[in-house]
């Protein structure tokens, strides 16, 4: 079953690859990625991921993402607000 993960990442070198690499390496396929600006220093990232084997647990993946620095996992993307700000 696939999960949709929303993450807000900083603008520093490596953060995007750090989190995408982690998801793959820890045993998940990435089926879709979407990125969107949130503010000058923050980008939103939504990843649709699916476990490669049945014993790979999303709870563990979430904890592994949460222990990275420079990003935050969020329940809802702030995409709409960002889009509004950009068009304004």
């Amino acid at each position, binding site marked *: 079953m696939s999960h949709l993960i929303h993450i807000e990442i900083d603008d*520093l*070198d*490596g953060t995007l690859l750090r989190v995408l690499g982690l998801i793959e*390496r820890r045993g998940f396929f990435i089926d879709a990625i979407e990125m969107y600006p949130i503010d000058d220093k923050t980008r939103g990232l939504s990843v649709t991921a699916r476990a490669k084997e049945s014993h790979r647990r999303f709870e*563990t993946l979430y*904890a*592994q993402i949460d*222990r990275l*620095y420079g990003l935050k996992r969020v329940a809802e993307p702030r995409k709409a607000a960002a889009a509004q700000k950009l068009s304004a």
Partner: protein
Amino acid sequence: MINQPTGAQLVISTLRALGVDILFGYPGGAIMPIYDALAGSGLTHILVRHEQGASFAADAYARATGKVGVCMATSGPGATNLITGIANAYMDSVPMVCITGQVGTHLLGTDGFQEVDILGLTLPIVKHSWLVRDPAEIPAILSRAFQIAQEGRPGPVLVDIPKDVAAAFVKDVPTTGEFPSWQPPQPDVADIKAAEKLIEQSKKPLFYIGGGVEMAFAVPQLRALMDRTGIPVVSTLKGLGAIPTTDDLFLGMLGMHGTRAANIAVQDADLLIVLGARFDDRATGKLSAFAPHAKVIHVDIDAAEINKLRMAQVGILGDLKMVLDGLHPKMQDISLWVAKCKSDKKKHAFRYDAPGTGIYAPALLKLLSEKAGDKFVACCDVGQHQMWVAQHCQFLQNRAHLTSGGSGAMGYGLPAGVGAKLALPDHHVVTVSGDGSFMMNIQEMATLRRYGIPLKIVLLDNSSLGLVRQWQRLFYEENYSEIDLSDNPDFVTVAQAFGLDAFRITSRDEVDGALDRLLAADKPTLLHILIDPRENVWPLVPPGASNAEMMEERWDEPLDSY
């Protein structure tokens, strides 16, 4: 201009402000501004002879002291040479900060001379990393790097600094930056109560401790909880020493080369109290057959470890000290269980009465640790000798068994000895190595000589890659493939050429005197010991098998699978 510091000078002044007293490194093009600022700064820099040595030495310095280890290298090959050490620190959760030089920012991404994307290469093996683009940020980034390396579950942090950033002058000198001090998560009271209840219900409880206990500085708290409860203990490779290995309730290491008593206790226990350990496959054997009757209480500072490999009935996220202090279960009578554990320990105690007159390495290592007493610190390489140290040496103190656990990196022992002896000058720091491993960082003997570091080296020479040989014998039908090292150099002559004292022993009656001579030495000294290549590590749980299936071959019995 004169009063404006460069980025490089900010690196040095920040390291000093952070309390760094020693760092290990090797210079080169891209990091020259930092080496320029280093000269005359008062910081002690140890020039190793290979960057891998710098990363291992920094790692061991950190393990021995609990402080952050620091290493430094130039871009490209210098940086890639650090990688094995970074992975090692990551796998064993060692707090380390690695500073690398990088090509100038205008050359980034152009395949500049000695350009390597070290940030990208190390993403999976660091806790965090930076490519510094603004020299004014150096104090804040380095300070944060030290904090991250230590907070929660420790680990390595990389700071990559382009040459122009290090060389640039900084107008407004920033302070180191204030960060909210990190607070460990408060253990949930309900979880503690639930754990107490499981302990109270248990007839056969067992502590399974890992390296997290000493890293959390929770040794006294564990001791007190053991005294309150009388529960026996088994340990992982990295947990050895947290409880003195001579303790009555200590059953030994569990897992592939664990003691029978430890593995039997785990298989029989009805409750495992897992403290700062992570169900590594070398410890658990076949996971589905591991501790089949046990409920699990898992205490860790890293939420990602709880329920990763084995579901816990009670998972407690938090600082071990607080959790252990909070546990006050009213014990039921577990004396039958404890008596069974102790009698297994006695029944399956290691034997040292090997036949013949050749040197029996397990007996030698046991004697070495006993002679060195509570000042004994072992820095191991990887192989049979490493497992013999874990099985047979006594450890009376924590932070005294420095070994490459999760990574199993041959070559760790000698540079680790450099770092550990500098950290603990009054201890009997002994590198225990094999003839294969020793050659991987043999150049660090030059570092011993340069700084007069009186490390003691025990080189167990079986003229082969012993552990690989053992597996080929047992699991590959004695098809010995590429394990012969009978053309080794004369290690005594080599060590002497590096300026060490060195001597060799070949028979059992020389052991006692040789160990006394080694321990009394006040110069770097190598003891070269010839042992029988056919000697193996027992017991052994075959890879992928349950820990209940321990193979053992004894002098008076044929190879046996229990």
